[in-house]
């Protein structure tokens, strides 16, 4: 009832068709603490695709997500979220259009898992889509496999369990653009595959998913397109087969990398030379 009064002039988003550009950075540059963290980065994100961001630590992956999410305004170039600079949307309107999973998840008070996931529904409070709340929460909890500890307090969970709860919160938001910063970093093999499976299903349903990954094999197996960031710039963009070459990866990661053909699937296998 409180939410209703807050919702006065929010424009409910209209879903974009598959293949449309939902977010983009055009020649974006970001300076943090006096250092150039992103330099002339151009990336477009389309509905219906899983876009993977890969690159070494400190390459600027999280920063690029911040730019797309509207947390940071680029000092040069510009970003765009559904046709306008992300920061031109009000916080409430942006929240109905994009969901963000941050690399660091924290919670300052001991809410339960169910309460945390429910927080993902708050952008829709007072709108007609509020009716989906129960269903969205239940589905997100099932998808992220956190229903088993729905009533546990968040701060009593293990690292991977917390990561899955945070993911469930993001899924429950049901925004058409989903930005995931290393959602699999803390996850076991099964849950890692599960999360990327969710990303694929969301893309198939017409959403756009941007996911930061360190495991190149996972990226190769699930992403439609890959952006390789290196030292604040885009080193390569394209399909896994185009981007994952031994030469490029060895240079970007400053480590010998071998790329082999998978005996059965079309995705390449990436191995560091040991």
């Amino acid at each position, binding site marked *: 009832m409180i939410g209703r009064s807050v919702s006065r002039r929010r424009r409910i988003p209209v879903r974009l068709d598959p293949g449309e550009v939902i977010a983009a950075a055009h020649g974006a540059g970001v300076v943090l603490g006096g250092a150039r963290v992103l330099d002339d980065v151009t990336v477009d994100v389309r509905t219906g695709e899983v876009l993977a961001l890969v690159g070494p630590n400190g390459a600027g992956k999280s920063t690029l997500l911040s730019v797309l999410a509207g947390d940071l305004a680029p000092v040069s170039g510009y970003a765009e979220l559904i046709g306008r600079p992300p920061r031109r949307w009000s916080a409430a309107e942006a929240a109905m259009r994009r969901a963000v999973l941050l690399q660091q998840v924290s919670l300052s008070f001991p*809410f339960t898992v169910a309460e945390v996931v429910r927080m993902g529904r708050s952008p829709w409070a007072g709108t007609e889509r509020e009716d989906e709340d129960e269903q969205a929460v239940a589905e997100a909890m099932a998808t992220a496999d956190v229903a088993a500890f729905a*009533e546990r307090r968040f701060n009593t969970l293990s690292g991977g369990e917390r990561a899955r709860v945070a993911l469930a919160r993001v899924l429950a938001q049901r925004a058409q653009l989903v930005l995931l910063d290393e959602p699999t970093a803390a996850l076991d093999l099964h849950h890692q595959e*599960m999360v990327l499976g969710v990303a694929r299903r969301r893309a198939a349903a017409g959403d756009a998913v941007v996911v930061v990954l360190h495991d190149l094999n996972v990226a190769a197996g699930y992403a439609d397109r890959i952006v390789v960031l290196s030292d604040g710039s885009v080193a390569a963009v394209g399909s896994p087969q185009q981007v994952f070459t031994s030469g490029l990866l060895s240079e970007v990661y400053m480590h010998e990398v071998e790329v082999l053909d998978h005996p059965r699937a079309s995705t390449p296998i990436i191995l560091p030379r040991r």
Partner: protein
Amino acid sequence: MSTDVSRTDSQTPPADAEVRRDRPPHGGRRAPSRRVRAAVLIGGLAAALAMVAVVSAGSGQLAIPPGEVAGSVLHRVDGGLESLLARFGVVADLPLDVGPLPSHAQGENTLWLVRFPRVVLAMLVGAALATAGALMQGIFGNPLAEPALVGVSPGAAVGASLVFVTGASFLDEWTVPVAAFSTGLCATLLVYLLSRSGGRTEVVTLILTGVAVTAVASALVAFNTFVANPEAREQIVFWQLGSLNGARWPAVTAVLPFVVVGLVAAVLLARSLDLLALGDRAARHLGVNVERLRIVAIVVVAMLVGSGVAFAGVIGFVGLVVPHLIRMVAGPGHRVLLPASALGGAVLLVGADLVARTAIAYADLPLGMLTALVGGPFFFWLLRRTRSRAGGWA
């Protein structure tokens, strides 16, 4: 229901989300137990408040039995409602005038001129302080934030002491609250601005900033005390000890609007405060205008604390102890925490004031001294507990 589900789930983890499609869509719903608990808590606190208020109003040099206190209130309510209806042309005889009236000749006067204003003021101040504490903790994302700790009450003391020294009365009985409110707000904003860096508030910075602002505020109060004439000096000293001594209806009417507006505003912020627990950025991603929320919340805190301490003086630790206890029972959700804290604070302060008035015969102990006496050790316990749990703070 959900506990049963969780047990089966943990034994046979499903290979895929599809397995769970047969579950009812309410699987993720908050367990009813917490809602029931919240309802019981709020109901219990309201009942406790009524009880402690009646007992307190009946206690003192002239003892009045609870039945007579309740009877007196009911008669007045009955008469009041009837004359209100009569004004609209409705003649009614409401059945509320039940129960005995005070048997002592001075009973009615004692209740309505001395005791009730004091009890009501205690309720308002307690509610204001506890709600302000809960708000503060919400916006700083830390259970240790407390109005007094971060310099609000010392700031308010500067304004109040200044009024006592200058004898200013430009706003009649509103002078002290307005002055205390203004300087309390300044101190709060100062602490807020000084303790934030890069969009975050580190606890150590927060507490140290509070220490710094408190030190300066105390120095200003000390100066005011120094230059004051004996009468004003006494006012300043006793104001700072905190007391509801001498509370009359004008004080209640002066405080009431601030507290009511503050409580309503606080409850309106509840949903956003919940989201703020995720951190500033995640809260923004969920649609919260974080900077605006903080500013509004801080103004509300200053309003609550400023008006609360204006007539009652510095009363510490209510804002720390009460929300913490409520959180232990009802969880951290602000939609329950804020109203329950208001009730809890009212109960605590009416109770504490009762002790202050009656513990020692013919003496009115300083209320702020009492709450600090109990609150200090509690704060220490809280500190230890949090440290051992979370391994300390950054």
